[in-house]
């Protein structure tokens, strides 16, 4: 192995792959067979974290950053003047195996720029996965990118070796896509996604009838959207997201705050801040949809096309629906408990278990881990003291904000001072 050359390629192709935020290695179930190498099950493991605080679970690289497309938002776009490189199939296999054996990673996440055409690229990605599975008896996690426009036969084959497949739709709206990536068509993204969805359904049906069905993409599909590149509202993003969850049974939608990488006048300029707070609010909304039983229309609609930045989306919803509170934690059903600001999945589970023994009071709730600084305005419990005063949403919001500190307070106060003091703009 020529370590020096490999190192050069690795630096280029890891750097180019880092804007894909997905690094999850969860949701699969692959056992170690015939004393082979590796397994993957359940929740996956984050083996490290980069200085930006993101999990490192997989060896995340591009096969090549040569690309025939010229999407404005993408760092590997054809017109960008950067160093280009390409891995050989065997090189990726060797890197994966050697990193895996040292317990650095859970597996491989392989994506690629598109060279020649979609099928040619997809074939190369599959070749890596196939080699890992068949020649190295590798049972670790493999995430392959579905190349937009790849043929059905190739997508079928990809799912036989990969745990997860993903197509990044990147731009949430069709009009944004037309503006920033005129050569691309939404249909090309959807085609491989549709095929994989159908194959998974077919696999599950056959599994019920037959004993031995070759396993197909056990960790399902995911996608990613770039946030803040094409002027879309939060509602547009989350409605697109809800649509993809529903229509393609996606496991995850990722939201990636746009990192300015280009002087293109269609995009935010280089040096403008990554919208990290907005990204965080979108993830909170995503969680509310997937685990807390909310419908996207409750959280975002015509009257509220954007999420509030200073409070989380659940609190925001509760303040708009004060007529549904307060609820009694000792009686309310799980659905309603999950809607209380300050109660998360874990505390709700504990509350439901613990209240079988006795009625819960404030102290019990606190020791269980509920955030009472928010929750206390929305619940009553086994206690004679509780918030009785009728307050308006605005009053409640200001009380809660003044009694809590956000990890984003620096970002928030910056935003406020910009508006408060117009002079700072000219300074």
């Amino acid at each position, binding site marked *: 192995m020529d370590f020096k050359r490999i190192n050069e390629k690795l630096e280029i192709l*890891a750097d180019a792959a880092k804007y894909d935020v997905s690094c999850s290695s969860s949701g699969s179930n692959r056992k170690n067979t015939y004393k082979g190498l590796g397994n993957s099950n359940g929740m996956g493991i984050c083996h490290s974290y980069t200085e930006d605080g993101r999990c490192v679970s997989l060896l995340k690289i591009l096969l090549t950053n040569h690309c025939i497309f010229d999407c404005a938002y993408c760092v590997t776009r054809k017109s960008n003047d950067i160093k280009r490189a390409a891995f050989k199939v065997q090189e990726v296999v060797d890197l994966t195996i050697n990193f895996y054996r040292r317990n650095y990673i859970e597996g491989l996440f392989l994506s690629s720029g598109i060279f020649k055409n979609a099928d040619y690229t997809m074939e190369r990605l599959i070749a890596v996965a196939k080699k890992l599975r068949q020649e190295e008896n590798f049972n670790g996690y493999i995430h392959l990118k579905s190349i937009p426009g790849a043929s059905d036969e190739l997508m079928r084959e990809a799912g036989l070796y990969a745990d997860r497949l993903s197509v990044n739709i990147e731009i949430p709206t069709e009009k944004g896509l037309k503006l920033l990536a005129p050569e691309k068509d939404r249909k090309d993204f959807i085609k491989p996604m549709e095929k994989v969805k159908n194959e998974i359904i077919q696999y599950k049906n056959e599994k019920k009838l037959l004993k031995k069905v070759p396993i197909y993409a056990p960790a399902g599909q995911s996608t990613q959207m770039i946030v803040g590149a094409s002027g879309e509202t939060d509602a547009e993003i989350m409605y697109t997201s809800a649509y993809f969850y529903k229509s393609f049974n996606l496991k995850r939608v990722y939201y990636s705050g746009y990192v300015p990488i280009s002087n293109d006048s269609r995009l935010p300029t280089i040096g403008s801040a990554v919208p990290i707070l907005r990204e965080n609010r979108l993830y909170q909304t995503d969680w509310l949809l997937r685990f807390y039983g909310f419908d996207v229309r409750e959280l975002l609609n015509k009257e509220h096309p954007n999420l509030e930045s200073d409070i989380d989306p659940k609190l925001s919803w509760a303040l708009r629906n004060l007529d549904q509170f307060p609820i009694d934690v000792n009686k309310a059903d799980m659905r309603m408990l999950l809607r209380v600001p300050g109660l998360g999945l874990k505390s709700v589970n504990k509350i439901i278990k613990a209240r079988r023994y006795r009625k819960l009071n404030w102290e019990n709730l606190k020791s269980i881990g509920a955030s009472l600084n928010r929750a206390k305005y929305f619940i009553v419990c086994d206690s004679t003291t509780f918030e009785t005063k009728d307050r308006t949403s605005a009053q409640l919001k200001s009380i809660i904000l003044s009694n809590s500190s956000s990890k984003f307070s620096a970002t928030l106060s910056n935003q406020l001072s910009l508006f408060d003091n117009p002079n700072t703009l000219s300074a």
Partner: protein
Amino acid sequence: MKTILKYDGSFEGLLSSVFYVYEHKLKEVSIIKEEHYEPNFFDHSITILSEPKKAKRVWQGLSKKISPKAKTKLYKAFLSETLNIENTILYYIRKALSASVSIENDFTDSEILHLEKTVKKVDREKHRMDAFVRFQLTKDGIYFATIEPDFDVLPLNTSHFKSRYADQRWLIYDIKRNYGIFYDLLNVQTITLELSKDIHRGDKASLYFTYEEIEFQKLWFNYFNSSNIGSRKNIKLHIKHIPKRYWKFLTEKKF
């Protein structure tokens, strides 16, 4: 008068102590590791010997009253090595055995909640070791790693590493507690070693590890740095996920 039971620090020893409590119908009692015991004037202390048979009777007897999951929790709490955790475990056992319904989810009881939280901490440390072990290939072909976990979690890691790395010989050594687990392609066994003092020194690495090993470490180090997005820098979050005390074992933090 309170009775203090001193045991040898093993899980068997703890269960033997529990046996003793029931055998002698002790009311006011406290269990402590012998090494932590400080004699005092008022209490009466007894040294308990580890007896596999008695320990087994307690452990099997528990199954009648508590779920396998709760039994695992008792073991994990023990591995936390937290001072006084023995008494929380004893409290839990007594309460479970005397109650007519399961007490496992009674989180309004502060002792039960304390046990639950201790188990959470142990689980997290176990998971960290699954993540932070960094094997280095030695010249004699063993994938070797050292760790220094906050709690004695190595016994919990065995099955994960055994099923994942079934085709390579590996050794994970807890340098704080001076024992390790070694897999020889068939079984995992607990071993104790005299480790060379200079095994962690970068300039001595070529004595113990292959040339390829050192090159792969550099590749990983560079990969780690290339995948960071500078404009999203968030050191606080970074350190929350990887507290500094683990850095010395992480290849990506070493060079």
